[in-house]
């Protein structure tokens, strides 16, 4: 074997504390190393060209680059050696930046360590062999989970790009949080006027299949070939027939149940269509409150329905779909502000959330767009907005900024003035975070043109006085305590991970971060990919986002999916397990432990049971390799011999001239 070694200076990032020429010189003494050099930036164009030239001139059949972490540039260099005519797996990296130069201060120690890491890489490379990916076809269909604005955008973009789309939504209608909003910042345009047409497009697009009231039951398969089972929850209405006429809603005698679409500010009938623009516009029965389903009596809706589509016997239904890629757009939930004792924990009806306020502002809301406070229906005069309720607060385990609360509070202050010209808004804030196109201008308008009184400080308590609420807080700029007599208090609640995200994450093998939001593949360079190939993220499920950011990410995820499915075939990573059949005794331990069902039992030509790996299903974890006592199943590129060679490079066995 002829190995070339390239030691990267990474400017002064490595060379600052590692003697790169010395490392390169030492590498020449390693077995099979025929060429070694140091280079300023191995990943730069001249750096890569240098590698390619050396491969050709020196007839190298393997390359070691000692530079940054392979998590950064392994792919870059693999492509480079491929351009030079080598197999991409005839390449190894030694991480002498993150693991050496950046964490050790002493040049001498670092240099020795770098030399040893290069030696390890050389020993591993000596045992590498070219690996050829298998090619497989993909299912040209996309699953989008979640019908909020991010999911809608992703579904439409995928469908417009020519792929079939299955969009599933847990609630009765798509639209998500945005459908509940009155106006959007910073343009103050009507939210449903912006979103509505897109929702209609979903319903009408020939390539989109929409399942509302549906959740992911199970996920099998792998990129290009996922097998999804969807649970369609019983709605007790035959949606194939229902035309959304709404007669049943009017006649339903049981309408005491809080209306979740209106944030429980009012009640809804037990058979309901959540809002006039709902997509699909179909009625569904709430089995918790329906008299027929809970007590067995009533049945009025079935009587009045002109199309006879009520079916009290309906059961959940499981639907199987095969898809090539999955976009997760499950959104977020609002922080439960009851964790704060100082806001009365629900004792005072006139303390509401920003989303409830949004419904009060909305013309389609419970008050028809009139701002009336819940306790007595009076129009408020003094309205206090409290920001950072469940954001940037370690005490409730929400140290992160939810990002959009500053903006929607400003919007609500502006709308308040529009609705009630005599009103006065007070905003308690910690900092104003308004980076975004026209955002800061917008908050300034709220203060300067609409006269919202911004107080920098937290609220320590709210208590009722007569029919008002006394809001006491600190004004940290004035250094005083302030008390405001409020008629209504609006809490700008932050975003948190959606309920059920963890369970969905387990099914999709997408990790949650410490707060429950899904983790992207790389925070900067792969913001919509996940560590599971073929699964992408869009919108606030990955972290709090406002509408334009969610829409952008929806489009970005769609672009990724379209790119993936535009290929006729996909390549599977050839670094998968491989069975050395003569060694296999057919005990099936590997089959038992494989988390992916990627190993099956086959019979050899004598009828003996043997294990066989399904290349495209195998994810390359190597659990099986450790399970197999005879080492018959080896994970390619991380074989026992390759890892043992690394161990032995670090801990060489003693050699004796005489064993007697």
């Amino acid at each position, binding site marked *: 074997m002829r190995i070339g070694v390239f030691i990267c200076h990474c400017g002064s990032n490595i060379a600052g504390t590692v003697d790169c020429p010395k490392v390169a010189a*030492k590498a*020449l*003494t*390693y*077995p099979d190393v025929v060429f070694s050099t140091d280079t300023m930036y191995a990943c730069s164009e001249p750096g890569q060209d240098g590698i390619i030239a050396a491969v050709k001139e020196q007839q190298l059949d393997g390359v070691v680059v000692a530079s940054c972490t392979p998590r950064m540039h392994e792919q870059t260099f693999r492509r480079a050696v491929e351009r030079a005519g080598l197999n991409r797996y005839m390449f190894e990296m030694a991480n002498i930046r993150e693991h050496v130069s950046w964490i050790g201060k002493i040049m001498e120690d670092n240099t020795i360590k770098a030399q040893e890491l290069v*030696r390890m890489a*050389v*020993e591993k490379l000596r045992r590498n062999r070219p690996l050829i990916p298998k090619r497989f076809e993909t299912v040209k269909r996309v699953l989008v989970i979640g019908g909020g604005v991010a999911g809608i955008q992703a579904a439409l973009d995928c469908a417009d790009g020519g792929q079939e789309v299955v969009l599933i939504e847990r609630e009765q209608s798509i639209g998500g949080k945005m459908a509940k909003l009155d106006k959007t910042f910073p343009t103050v345009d009507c939210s449903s006027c912006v979103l509505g047409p897109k929702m209609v497009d979903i319903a009408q697009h020939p390539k989109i299949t929409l399942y509302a009231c549906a959740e992911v039951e199970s996920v099998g398969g792998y990129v290009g070939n996922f097998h999804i089972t969807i649970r369609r929850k019983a709605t007790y209405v035959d949606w194939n027939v229902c035309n959304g006429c709404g007669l049943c809603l009017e006649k339903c005698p049981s309408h005491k149940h809080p209306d979740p679409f209106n944030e429980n500010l009012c009640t809804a009938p037990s058979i309901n269509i959540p809002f006039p623009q709902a997509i699909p516009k179909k009625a569904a029965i709430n089995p918790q409150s329906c008299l027929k389903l809970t007590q067995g009596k009533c049945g009025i809706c079935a009587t009045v329905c002109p199309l006879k589509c009520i079916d009290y016997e309906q059961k959940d239904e499981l639907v199987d779909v095969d898809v090539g890629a999955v976009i997760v757009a499950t959104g977020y939930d609002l922080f439960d502000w009851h964790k704060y004792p100082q806001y009365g924990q629900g004792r005072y009806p006139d303390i509401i959330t920003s989303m409830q306020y949004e419904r009060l502002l909305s013309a389609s809301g419970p008050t028809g767009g009139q701002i009336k406070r819940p306790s007595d229906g009076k129009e408020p005069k003094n309205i206090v907005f409290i920001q950072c309720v469940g954001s940037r607060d370690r005490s409730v385990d929400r140290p992160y900024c939810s990002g959009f609360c500053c903006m929607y509070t400003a919007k609500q202050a502006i709308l308040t003035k529009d609705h009630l010209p005599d009103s006065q808004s007070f905003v308690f804030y910690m900092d104003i975070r308004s980076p975004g196109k026209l955002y800061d201008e917008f908050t300034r308008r709220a203060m300067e043109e609409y006269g919202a009184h911004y107080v920098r400080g937290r609220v320590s308590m709210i208590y009722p006085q007569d029919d008002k609420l006394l809001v006491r807080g600190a004004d940290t700029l004035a250094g005083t305590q302030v008390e405001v007599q409020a008629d209504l208090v609006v809490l700008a609640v932050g975003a948190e991970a959606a309920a059920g995200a963890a369970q969905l994450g387990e099914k999709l093998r997408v990790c949650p971060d410490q707060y429950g939001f899904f983790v992207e593949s790389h925070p900067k360079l792969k913001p919509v990919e996940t560590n599971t190939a073929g699964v992408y993220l869009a919108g606030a499920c990955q972290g709090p986002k406002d509408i334009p950011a969610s829409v952008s990410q929806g489009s970005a995820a769609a672009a990724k999916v379209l790119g993936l499915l535009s290929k006729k075939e996909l390549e599977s990573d050839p670094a998968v397990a491989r069975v050395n059949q*003569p060694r296999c005794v057919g005990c099936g331990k590997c089959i038992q432990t494989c988390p992916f069902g990627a190993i099956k039992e086959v019979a050899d030509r004598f009828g003996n049971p043997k294990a066989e790996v399904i290349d495209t299903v195998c994810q390359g974890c190597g659990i099986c390799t450790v399970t197999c006592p005879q080492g018959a199943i080896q994970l390619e590129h991380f074989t026992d011999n390759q890892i043992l*060679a690394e161990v*032995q*490079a670090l801990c*060489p*066995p003693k*050699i*004796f*001239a*005489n*064993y*007697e």
Partner: protein
Amino acid sequence: MKYITKKNLLRLTEELSSVYRVLAPVAQGGTVTFRRFHPGMTLDMHSRMAAVSAKMATLPQTESLLLVQRVEENKKPELTETLPQGKTLVMGARPCDARGKLLLDPVFITEKIRDQHFIHRRENSIFITLACDQPETTCFCHSVGSGPADTAGSDILLTLVGEGYVAQAISDQGQEIVTHSFFEDAQDRGQQAQAKHGHALELMGQAHDYSSAPAKILERFDDMDFWEVQSAKCISCGACTYMCPTCYCFNITDNDLGLTSQRIRTWDNCMSHTFTLEASGHNPRPTKAHRLKNRVGHKFSYYPDLYGGIMACCGCGRCIKQCPTGVDIRQIVNAAQEYAQ
């Protein structure tokens, strides 16, 4: 004939250990094996026959053949042949050990091939042998041309008489050693020794006649049913071959350790599946029946065919005694000899 007390024999062994690499039966953890002797150790010549034979005197379990080293200044690896150094003396071998040693000669020293490592050890080793005064139920040396007081391959033959040994020098080198002042004249103890030899042989009973074995075993060569029955209880381990004074098969392995590499020779084991495993994956001896057939056939048929009728067995019985499942090579050869068509 000379005589040496037990105490003086230990002192002699200690003295010799400064000149020779002395191998002697030493007790450890309930067993006795031949080990490198150092002053301070005690000899255990009698409690039992050493579990492992003295074969390692001429064919060690592991020996280095070559060393390959890379050094910083010079890119080219340096290659060194590692020939054995010094002389070896085996103290307290049994006659079967000494005879076993002789059976390796025709293999390692031929007209075409002269194994330098073996020859060096063979020419630089001395065997001080202890005649057996009591056979074991597994012993059959008298059936393979040897006996409890066989002198073949020995330089000195010791016979336990009273609290010491009668020493009979066999070779010139042996003669030189018995001139040491620790030795006294044997006087009439010589006769007592002779009587002991006779008594031991008598206890062994009638010797078995193996002369028909080579042909009879060959007759069974293709009869795998026969071998499957014979090998049924064999578990394919290497206890028999590693204990055996006459098994000489070896393996050569290159240990690629990167900066330093080594070529070593180690005992191989014909009971192992890997013994004749070919690079293609094919194995001409895929089952334990094939392999046991080879072992028995080699000792009692193929070897005698090649080397003038001598069995490649010294009758020490270690393979029987140490076999975890009691496979008895005598029974297998008998079965072949007595096989009725």
